[in-house]
């Protein structure tokens, strides 16, 4: 091992472990601010439960609105991760190494937050467990025909899988933290490292487990968003009852997931000073991927709307028109700009595809994708078959506060996570940079894992 690489390794360890041991007042300030926003959100939810669901802007006939929009949005964001990192792992894209963990964490947290919304939106949230099949005295099971019960299974499966997928490759890094720290940290990370010693057998098992997870998580991720789309497409609501919804939702989910990932990476790069590990090329590559997804999304929405236009079924046409040129038109065209026009221009011109460019495009995509979900949920419900019952929706403060606080919750969880676990997979990075020796004991260097990832 050259002197140079030894210095490099030690710098890497130091850079990537620094956030775990050094805490500035800025961190506490950030946590305090975010924490109070989250607390406000929780308090608002309690208030909503106490006063009644009527504190929201939901009404007859728009029985789903902000909460379900945000539910679908977060479930979509959750595709950042696992799906992207699994694909990148499987296709063995070398540039993925610093990115995978950032992405997988997004998945886990976005899922947790997203899964809250079906409960928040319940009329009687304290009975949420009736959605689960649990043995009970009355022998009453949930209705397995209901897409909401499918949701429960899909999300819980995906969450379990994503957590595994996140935790597995964390083990060697937790062991590293254990080895580099003393005191309580040593003991805590010792427990979390699950006795990782880096033996060939352990590496082998990690490798197999990760391969299995990477392959298994992809169909799960695809199915999750397909099932979320079934919440809509199983109901005979104009513009919902659509066969395209499955792939359309999955594409949209990956699209918004990439955007979330780019934002998260840029933030980490800036605040944790990881410029050396997250290079512009990573952003450019993700940007290209996002450009592709943008085009795919555009294709899907064009497809969806074109067939409705030609189909000309009276109820669907009303929803179509109200979104296209009626009261929802400003939102619709903002969405098109956010999801297509702006990212297309930024990402397809090489000069603009800088880190800043990618981050701007990502922000527009996040906004655009939230709007997309809103425009799926609300205009259709407001314009069902009998025009006498058409209605309007305006969000009320409780909804806005709760939805906004989940963004703070996401950031808070992310910040806390990056404080506790190296946000960049140190060992994978080392493997990528051939610092095998430091990452693994000498005898493990011959392991196929390292051969496979030169």
């Amino acid at each position, binding site marked *: 091992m050259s002197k140079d690489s030894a210095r490099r390794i030690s710098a890497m360890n130091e850079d990537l472990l620094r956030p775990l041991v050094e805490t500035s007042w800025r961190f506490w300030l950030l946590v305090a601010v975010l924490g109070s926003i989250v607390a406000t959100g929780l308090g608002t939810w309690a208030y909503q*439960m*106490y006063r009644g669901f009527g504190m929201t802007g939901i009404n007859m006939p728009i029985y789903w609105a902000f909460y379900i929009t945000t539910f679908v949005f977060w479930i979509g964001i959750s595709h950042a991760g696992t799906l992207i990192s699994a694909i990148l792992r499987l296709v063995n894209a070398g540039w993925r190494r610093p990115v995978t963990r950032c992405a997988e964490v997004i998945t886990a947290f976005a899922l947790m937050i997203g899964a809250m919304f079906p409960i928040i939106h319940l009329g009687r949230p*304290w*009975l949420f467990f009736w959605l689960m099949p649990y043995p009970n005295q009355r022998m009453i099971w949930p209705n397995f025909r209901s897409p909401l019960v499918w949701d429960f299974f899909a999300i819980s499966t995906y969450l379990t899988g994503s957590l595994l997928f996140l935790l597995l490759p964390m083990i060697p890094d937790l062991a590293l933290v254990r080895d580099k720290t003393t005191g309580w940290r040593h003991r805590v990370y010792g427990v979390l490292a699950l006795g990782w010693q880096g033996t060939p057998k352990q590496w082998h098992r990690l490798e197999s487990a990760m391969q299995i997870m990477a392959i298994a998580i992809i169909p799960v991720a695809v199915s999750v968003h397909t099932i979320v789309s079934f919440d809509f497409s199983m109901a005979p609501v104009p513009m919902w009852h659509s066969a395209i919804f499955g792939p359309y939702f999955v594409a949209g989910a990956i699209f918004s997931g990439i955007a979330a990932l780019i934002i998260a990476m840029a933030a980490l790069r800036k605040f944790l000073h990881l410029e050396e590990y997250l290079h512009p090329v990573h952003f450019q590559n993700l940007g290209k991927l996002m450009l592709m997804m943008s085009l795919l999304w555009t294709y899907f929405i064009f497809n969806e709307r074109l067939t409705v236009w030609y189909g000309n079924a009276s109820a669907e046409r009303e929803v179509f028109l109200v979104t296209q040129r009626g009261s929802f038109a400003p939102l619709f065209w903002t969405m098109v700009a956010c999801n297509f026009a702006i990212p297309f221009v930024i990402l397809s011109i090489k000069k603009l595809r800088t880190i800043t460019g990618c981050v701007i495009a990502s922000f527009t995509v996040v906004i655009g994708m939230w709007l997309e979900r809103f425009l799926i949920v609300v205009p259709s419900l407001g314009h069902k078959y009998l*025009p*006498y*019952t*058409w209605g309007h929706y305006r969000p009320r403060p409780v909804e806005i506060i709760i939805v906004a606080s989940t963004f703070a919750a996401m950031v808070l969880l992310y910040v806390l996570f990056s404080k506790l676990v190296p946000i960049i997979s140190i060992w994978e990075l080392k493997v990528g940079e051939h610092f095998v020796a430091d990452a693994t004991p000498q005898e493990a260097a011959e392991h196929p894992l390292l051969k496979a990832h030169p």
Partner: protein
Amino acid sequence: MDRRDFIKLTAITGTSATLASCGNPEHQLIRFIPDDDLVPGVAEWKPSVCPLCSAGCGLSVRVMEADAEVVRNGERGLVKIAAAKKLEGQPDHPINQGGLCPRGQAAIQITYHPDRLTQPMTRSGARGSGEWKPITWDEAIAEIVSQLDQVAGEPAALAFLARPRRSRRLELATAFVRGFGAPAPITFELFGDEVLRRANAISFGRDQLPTYDLARSRYVIAFGADFLGTWNSPVAQNAGYGAMRQGHPQVRGTFVQVESRMSPTGANADEWVPVKPGTEGVLALGLAHVILKNNLRPDRGADRGAGAPGVNNVRGGGAPGLNDVRAGASIEGWSGGLTAYTPEQVEKISGIAAKRVERLARELAEHGPAVAIVGGPPLAQTNGLFTALAVNALNALLGTVGQPGGVSFMPQVSQPLAVSPKPFEGLATAKVLLIDDANPVFASPKAWKMRETLEKIPFIASFGSFIDDTSSLADLILPDHSFLESWTDGLPESGAAVAVANVAGPVMRPLHNTRATPDVLLDVAGKLKKPVTLPWKSFDEMLTSSMPEAAWATVQKQGWAEVTGPTPVARPALRAIAYAEPTFDGDAGQFPFHFLPYASQALYDGSLAHLPWLQELPDPLTSAMWSSWVEINPSTAQRLNIAQGDLVDVTSSQGTLRAPAIVSPGIAPDVIAMPVGQGHQTFTRYASNRGANPVSILAPVTEAETGALAWAATRVKIARAGDPDGSLIMFAGEMREHPHEHEVR
């Protein structure tokens, strides 16, 4: 805490927990011994009478045991009472035949209204300040007796204000004031039908509202009458209408409505004929002209000497010599074939194409039995009597007066109503005023200065159950029982073929410390220094004595009985009249729009605005709830830059009101319509200060012959006054079934 407790805890925030815990009153409320013996959980059905309008529908009241909180001997406690739970139409009642209108269904909320007056009160602040002091009944009666004693001997010092209803209750009040030496009660109702009563007296010798045998009609033409909504006997007319449409195999009656703003009734018409306000009579005579000229007169009309036996007894009660030739004789030019009313002439006056007049006349003549109905706005014009006479004459010509499928008159056993066209005149000299559930401050034009008149009266006592615009000016409140708690009666004028007397006893005990007004009057009568002697000790005694024993037995069982007696016949002087152009208040240049207030399907004339069910009942045409609104034709709205929900100022010569606009295709471009009902200053938590009252800006124009208020003869101008302020609450989203197809077209 287990799950159930948690649910309970969360439920406690609202009433449901309260209701749940009601059966288990462990919080120490005392229990009193119940007066009624009811089987708990089992319903009993008792007859009653709907008090809301003069139609007099029979009720069947579902009575069940309930726990009520009461005060007895100064202690608050719970007692099991027999509580009315639901009102239904009585299946055997000859008028409503089991049906009931939405207002009748909601009448039960009068009894249980949270703002109902629970005890006698006297004014403790300035008049109209809304400050009251509870007093006992003894004190209250002593007060009214002393006030009456002070004015004893002054003939016009006592005034009694009531709603016009043919009833023993009003007869008792009349006997009381007459005995005191005062003039008969002043009765006033905004949507009263004095004009039509007078016209019927002239045309047919019957001073009452007509009954229509719609069930057997094959062609109905209605002039402005909202007979399926609020006018005359709507439930009976709905029943007849349903049967006319689908009651006979293969035969479906046709229905044409003539009016300038589509009413809920007009909404059901096969053909809707918009007409210039005030020219409906011309159209009626135009139709008559075509029939006469072409000799299309149906055969059945040839012999009009005697009523056909076995059918609705139009001239019932024996009015020999009265025949409906008289109806024609009241119209100038009738015998000459109405040459002044050629289709061309009709087109010029009313705006209805001559060809259409011709066609309608032929249809009318060919599709017998046919009947023409008139009521509402056309009669509330300066030429209202002419219009009514014209339609009466048309009916006579069609030959269906007293015939199956035509118009007839229900036999009557009581004297016709004496309605006061200008109630304020009788009040000018009053020193003591008794108000029995009338609200003229709300229901009369500002120009009549009703409030100012009342404010000048030294002493006012109100018997009503609520503080409303009028009773808020009272000095003494003597709250009445609700109709479910006391004897009620009514002698309907129309809606059935036989004379019906509605009489029903209380179906439940009084909830509050109230007293039946007729009994209070009887009590007061006996306590006066110079007692008024009345032949009855109590109101139920009066009711008992008013009918034969057999009928009384029936009444107790079913709440109504068929009664017989000589039907009073009216023979007003006959004078042929011709069409006179309607005159309107306000210069057509300055006030370009006709202003049409109309009775609201839910709130009627505003007297029901305090019932939450009715406030939240979507209006049939606009779907508006809890609101006032101004209906404007789309082209007018566009011209004046008014969109749905925009605030609009409606200005007449009498003042301005502001209300949100509803752009409605069912109204003529030069007409502005507005429902009556909202705009109460004071009328319980549900109606106070809600919306605007169109009556307030009406000009004091009267019908030329009868002096009745011509409430449809005011002209207004309108102007956009602002953006929507959220006061227009609609239940419906869209007004068209295929909104965009309409747009394309």
